[in-house]
Each structure stands twice: as C-alpha cells, then as structure tokens.
C-alpha cells in the first residue's frame, strides 16, 4: 500500500508534535509548481556540537512510489527505537540501541520524503507512470524531470536528458527552474550537508558520481567546470572523462560496498555499487549536482552524494520486465526494508568518530585538519594507505558506540586524539614507548569489548601497526602505513588471544 501526500505529511506532523525534542517538521522554502507546501523532517537528539549532516530525499520521480513510504517508515523506526532505547532489526541485519543512540546524537538528519508531491498526487489520480513534476510548459506539454533540472552540466543532452518539453526527461527551461529541485539546492546551502542520498527505483543499485561521463582519477584538467553547458547538444568534447580525487573515489566505493553488504544481510538481495554513468548518461541530476558544489565553488563544503535504485525488476510470466509493477509493486514491504537498511547504513557511515570526539569533547575546530590532510593527501595515494583508511572507516562506528557508553574509554580516546593532533604538528617528533603503550592498552580495551570477528581482525591489524612504532618519527610511521599492506600484517602474526574483560 502507498500513502497519499497528505498521509506522508501527517506522519511527520505527528512525529514533530509528539516528540519535539527529537523531530522537527520543517517547511521547505519553495512550494511545488501547483502550490503545495513541501515538508522535511529534521531528526537529532542530544546536545552534541560539530555534527555531520545527512540529507535524504525521496519521491523526486513521481511514479517511484515506495521510497517516500520507506523514508517515513524509517523516521518512525528511528524515533521509536531511540525513545524506547531499543535497536532496529530489519530481517537479518540489526542495529543495537547504542548504534541508534550514537546516530541520532551525533548526526543532524534531514529527510525530505516526498520532494515532488504534485507528481505523486497525479500518479494516484491520473497516470500511474508519471515521472515528472506538474509544470505547465507554455503552449506545449506538461512536466519537467526534476532530476535533470539541477545546475550540473545542465542543458547538455544525453539519451536520458532532453531539451524537448514533450519528453519525459525534459530538463526544464532553466537551471533550477523548478521549485522541487530548488528545495534541494536551498537545503544544501542552508545546512552545509555532508552526505546526501536521493532514493529512486528500480534495479537494486547503489550509485555515486559521476553520471555525465565515466570517472577517472589521473587527469585533473578534465573537469566539468570547463564544459559548455546550456547548449541543448551532446557533451563536447565527446571523449571527456570527469576527474575525481582518488580519496573521494575510495570513499564512494568503500561506503557503497558497505551499504550493499548491509542490504544483503537483510534477506540476501544483491545490490550493485557503481557510478551513475554505468547505468546510463545523465546531466542535471541531484546527486552529481550536490557532490559537484564544492568543485564549482571551493568555498562550499564537500558533500558525498549517493543515489539508490531500490527494488528488483519484477518479471512477467514470459520473462520480460513488468515496468509498472517494478515501480510500484503490489506489496513493497520487503523492498522498503532493504531500502531502510541502506539508508541506516549510509547514516552510520556518515559519522566520523574522530571529528565527533574532537569537536564534542575537545572543542577542536582546526586541529583535525592535519589529520584530514594526512588521510586525503598521503594515505589515499597508495594502495596500502588506502587499505588503512578503509579499515578505519569500517571500525569507527562500532568503536564509537563502545567508547561513548564507557566514561573511561571516552576519556582515554580524548587523550589519545589530543596526542595525535600534537604529534602531527611536527612529523619529526619521535613516538615514545609510553605513548605507544598507551595506544596499545586502548586497543586491548576495545578488543575486550568487541564481539564481531571482523572487528577483532581489524583491531589486530591496528595493534600490529602500533607495536612497531616506538622510537620512530611520525614521518616514518606514516611512511610505513603507506608501504605496508594490511594483508601483509595479517600474514605475519597470528591473532592474539582476546584479553579477558575486566569485571
């Protein structure tokens, strides 16, 4: 069953009325083409500062009905789990009460479930395959494809971006001509979003930039900023391949793979992580636009932007794809569950443990820049360094959960983070035996609390790296990280016995 626009709004209205400390319903700055008010829900708990901001959008394409419902369901799941101190279980994947608490207390989550309410209404009352908004193009056809209307290589036509107002993929009369796409731009402007997700259907994909061309990481001169736009002609030059920083590509692929793993754990569905271009060429999409903002304007914050294509293609008895049923299956329950798992996975991965501890407990604002620089400009440049970055991104969320519920661990994490920031001020500084021992003791404390095999393996790798670091300069330690694959470390040493947890 699919909810009406009014019901979707009511759910958010109730949540914000009943739980104002956790949920705030916010009216978006622009009403729809037909004058409907458009609402988002802002969820956050606690008083921590320095939060990362996540923005999830659904329903841009009107006929993809299940995603607005899935986002509303997720709002309720999160609110109820937080208020009751319980976790969330979706099939075979569970998030503990601590996981939910950490997410809501360390993130600002913005959810705009129904970005194109006119379109949804039209699907329910007139045309169930309607894709666009309800723009009345003067003297011509109706509708603009809101997901082709953003200011990113706008006006460059592809097989799925058209300048013809009678086409389903019409890009609109101008960049951000449509209020529904302006709402996305405006929220990004107002909130400095860190992570963005646009939820579409179907085919079970987790997409990331770029969508207009294939992606390369070796030639920084090939940037979209030099492309002619607004031409209503194909991309010129035709062989253009868009550059992406290796660090960003690593981040996109690591996060997407984890989302895929989390969705698979629910009931075994195999989503595929890939660039948007691997599906087909597009211009003016929300996810490319949101990620491109910091490149077009270096004063803006970088936003990692993803898109989902939820749900499998539903087949007819003769084996062909039943397109209407794929867009809105008679029973979307299981697809919505997969989608929710993907959204929670993305939220979880949006948390940076170091940034959170640094900002919340130590009040660090600029001190973490040196750590980011090491990550982005050094570690991400070699395969071994990239493995360490990926390892950190894997372990940080479960570790943060352990740390935040234990005062002594929180205190020790703060102390170690402070030490790291100071050490990175001068790479010639030599690590003392005492500093290394302190780090090892912290790792042991985490090992004693860790439950999963994967986490124990990763902590063992961290321990191994740390063990050989005494009496070495910071520079040498970093060089070792850049040159020693974590796989080598695994082979060298048997896993240590799990220390007995102190009572």
């Amino acid at each position, binding site marked *: 069953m699919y909810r*009406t626009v009014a019901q979707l709004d009511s759910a958010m209205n*109730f949540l914000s009325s*009943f739980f104002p400390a956790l949920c705030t319903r916010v009216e978006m700055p622009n009403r729809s083409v037909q004058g409907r008010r458009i609402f988002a829900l802002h969820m956050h708990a606690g008083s921590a500062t320095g939060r990362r901001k996540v923005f999830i959008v659904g329903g841009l394409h009107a006929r993809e009905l299940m995603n607005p419902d899935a986002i509303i369901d997720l709002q*309720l799941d999160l609110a109820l789990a937080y208020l*009751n101190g319980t976790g969330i279980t979706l099939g075979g994947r569970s998030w503990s009460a601590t996981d939910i608490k950490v997410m809501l207390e360390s993130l600002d989550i913005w959810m705009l479930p129904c970005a194109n309410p006119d379109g949804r209404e039209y699907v329910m009352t007139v045309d*169930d*395959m309607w894709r666009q908004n309800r723009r009345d193009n003067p003297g011509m056809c109706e509708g603009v494809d809101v997901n082709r209307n953003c200011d990113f290589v706008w006006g460059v036509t592809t097989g799925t971006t058209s300048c013809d107002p009678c086409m389903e993929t019409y890009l609109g009369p101008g960049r951000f001509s449509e209020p529904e796409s302006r709402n996305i731009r405006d929220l990004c402007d107002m909130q400095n979003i860190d992570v963005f997700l646009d939820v579409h259907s179907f085919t079970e994909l987790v997409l990331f930039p770029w969508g207009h061309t294939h992606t390369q990481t070796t030639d920084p001169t090939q940037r979209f900023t030099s492309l002619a736009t607004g031409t209503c002609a194909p991309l010129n030059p035709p062989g253009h391949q868009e550059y992406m920083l290796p660090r960003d590509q690593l981040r996109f692929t690591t996060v997407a793979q984890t989302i895929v793993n989390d969705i698979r754990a629910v009931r075994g569905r195999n989503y595929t992580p890939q660039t948007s271009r691997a599906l087909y060429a597009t211009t003016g999409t929300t996810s490319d636009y949101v990620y491109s903002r910091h490149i077009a304007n270096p004063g803006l914050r970088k936003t990692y932007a993803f898109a989902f294509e939820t749900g499998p*293609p539903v087949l007819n008895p003769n084996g062909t794809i039943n*397109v209407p049923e794929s867009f809105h299956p008679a029973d979307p329950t299981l697809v919505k569950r997969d989608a929710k798992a993907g959204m929670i996975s993305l939220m979880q991965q949006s948390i940076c443990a170091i940034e959170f501890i640094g900002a919340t407990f130590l009040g660090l604002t600029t001190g973490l820049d040196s750590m980011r620089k090491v990550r982005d400009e050094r570690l991400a440049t070699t395969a071994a360094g990239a493995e360490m970055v990926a390892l950190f991104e894997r372990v940080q969320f479960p570790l943060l959960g352990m740390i935040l519920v234990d005062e002594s661990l929180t205190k020790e994490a703060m102390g170690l983070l402070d030490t790291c920031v100071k050490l990175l001020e001068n790479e010639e500084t030599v690590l003392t035996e005492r500093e290394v021992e302190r780090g090892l003791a912290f790792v042991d404390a985490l090992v004693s609390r860790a439950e999963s095999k994967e986490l124990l393996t990763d902590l063992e790798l961290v321990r191994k790296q740390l063990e050989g670091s005494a009496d070495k300069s910071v520079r040498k330690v970093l060089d070792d990280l850049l040159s020693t694959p974590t796989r080598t470390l695994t082979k060298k040493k048997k896993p240590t016995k799990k220390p007995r947890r102190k009572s």
Partner: protein
Amino acid sequence: MAALDYREAPPTMRFSATIHALEQAADLNRIENLNIDRVPDPTGLVRALVTPEDCVRLVNQGFEVRLQQAHPVQPLNPELIESDESFKNWFDERMQSVRGFKARKGSKGR
C-alpha cells in the same frame, strides 16, 4: 529530428519496450543519445517506456522497437492506496510501543 508529440493530445497508452540498433556497430553511439524515458535494465538492454509517437520516431530513425507490454495511461490501482483510516490505525499502533506515549498524548489533550 523534431519530437513527435502529444502536443495536441496527451498519450493514452505507453509500452514497455527494448530498443535495438539495426546496424549495431554504427549505431552504438546514436542509441545512447535517444530522447526516451529510459528505465533500468539489469541485462544492459536499452529499455524504455515509449508512446506510440515515440515508436514512430524511433522506427523512422532506423531503430527496431520491440514492444513487450502495453500499459494504458491510468491512475494507480486504488487498492494500492492506503486509506486514511488504515493509515491512522498503522500510526496509532506504532505509537503504542512508545513508553509513556499515552500520558504525553493525554497531556496534550489529544
């Protein structure tokens, strides 16, 4: 080629179709640049929802259009739309699980 249009009247029928180049090698680029309402196809085919006018245009451009399923322009099956009553029951049921919710609700005079 100008689009063939439903400028005079909106379409009453769409088809799920796959689109194929007749001369494969020569048309590989061209097929990527069609103005069509493309939908994902896990097997990599060019799949789209097309109107009869789209079909004519595509055939005139030298493509083969294989229609797979007709779908009349129609509202969503009303049986798939949640009623207000069932929505309210669903929401109330979920709210029952919140500790102390009734008290809060009462205090608001709801």
